[in-house]
């Protein structure tokens, strides 16, 4: 299995989208963290207050902003596109067929795809976060929310698995990576609209609305951002359940696929 994952990692790295995802996913948190650092001591006013006085500055503070930038559509879109290319795209261009004619089970093939994508995103996440910390901590100082940042990074690994699982599941239903991206955006958009509606209902005093809001997929995918405040065990459990559902559904579809 290790060899299959290594082989798939190599394909991801050689794929133009994969290389771009690795570079952007690693470099963006670093750049944003450095840009954030430049705001230290800034006298630019916002609401009659200097921006430099409104924000807290330290290595983990800056790296947290970098992490936010990575999650803000950039990496999820890359991961969905990559998962789409790896499954739906390869089904259409017959590359899945070329793997399936070898003595490997569909489960092994499915797992090698899934785990290579996850490892690929995790490596870029860890390298980007570590570099952001290394470059900003000596400059901005060590005193900051280390535990919150570390927890956010750890939860990001889970979140990105959730995104990959969803994308792989969708990729077993459609035949192109473009359709995977479109259907992924539609699904998350729909989830966002529902959550907005549930927030509205919550404000109107509907008691069950906040609980349902917490179990939505999007709430689960956002748990990495709520470590310091707004943490919800329900959302964390929802992420695991939704990810598990996507994996099981994706696996079942994948095992039954004709690979012409």
């Amino acid at each position: 299995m290790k060899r299959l994952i290594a082989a798939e990692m190599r394909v991801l790295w050689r794929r133009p989208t994969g290389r771009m995802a690795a570079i952007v996913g690693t470099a963006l948190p670093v750049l944003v963290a450095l840009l954030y650092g430049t705001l230290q001591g800034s006298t630019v006013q916002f609401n009659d207050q200097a921006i430099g006085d409104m924000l807290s500055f330290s290595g983990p503070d800056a790296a947290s902003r970098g992490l936010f930038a990575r999650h803000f559509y950039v990496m999820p879109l890359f991961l969905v596109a990559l998962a789409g290319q790896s499954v739906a795209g390869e089904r259409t261009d017959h590359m899945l067929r070329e793997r399936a004619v070898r003595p490997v089970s569909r489960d092994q093939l499915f797992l090698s795809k899934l785990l290579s994508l996850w490892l690929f995103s995790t490596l870029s996440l860890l390298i980007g976060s570590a570099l952001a910390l290394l470059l900003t901590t000596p400059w901005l100082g060590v005193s900051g929310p280390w535990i919150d940042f570390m927890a956010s990074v750890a939860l990001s690994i889970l979140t990105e698995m959730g995104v990959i699982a969803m994308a792989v599941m969708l990729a077993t239903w459609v035949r192109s990576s473009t359709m995977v991206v479109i259907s992924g955006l539609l699904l998350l958009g729909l989830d966002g609209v529902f959550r907005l509606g549930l927030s509205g209902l919550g404000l109107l005093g509907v008691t069950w609305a906040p609980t349902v809001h917490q179990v939505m997929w999007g709430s689960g995918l956002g748990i990495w951002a709520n470590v310091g405040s707004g943490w919800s065990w329900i959302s964390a459990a929802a992420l695991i359940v939704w990810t598990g559902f996507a994996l099981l559904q994706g696996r079942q579809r994948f095992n039954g696929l004709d690979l012409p």
Partner: protein
Amino acid sequence: MASDALVTNGISRRFGQREALRALSFSVRKGEIYGFLGPNGAGKTTAIRCILGLIKADSGSVSIFGDHHSVSRLTGVGSMVETPAFHGFMTGHENLALSAAYAALEESVIPPALQAVGLADRAHEVVDGYSLGMRQRLGLARAIMGSPRLLILDEPTNGMDPRGMKDVRDLLVGLAAQGTSILVSSHLLAEVQQFCTRVGILDHGVLVHEGVVGDDLESVYLSVTQQGIQ
């Protein structure tokens, strides 16, 4: 039988209302080159896909060297289905390394395979720059790497020039002489006649003829297959 490399036993497959294969039974003996003939749409590629587990047969069974298991029976099987697919952004060598990983083969099997199809000097170029004939050769290299016991080839000379076709013929005859069993589908009767030991002719999903290759192959073929154009 113990002397059979591949046995299909009554495999059937339907696509919607269309019956692509009807109770197909045939066998490829060890060390022989079995020609799989038939008009377009006869079911040759569907049969090959069922044998390789790419699509599931609705009924029937397949065994390779006596192994019926859908995964383990593919150990020691090299194949090329229709136009071989590659990652165009990777080199020929990298594409074969990917397949070698899935086949649990060492990468040391790649250079001899590339040498055998005359692609050794182009192995480190990306496949997007290959011609159709070169891709076909690379597909063949992927099929023969690791010296498989059974080779399953679907139209292996597609897109090749006469020189390439002769090279493939010589390669297959050489492999068979070393004991490799080969199932090869083709439209080209003359080609099949030159190097196959036995043939099976498929028409509308049914095996309509099976026998030793003789000089009368064309007349047999025309008599057992239905007229396509009225």
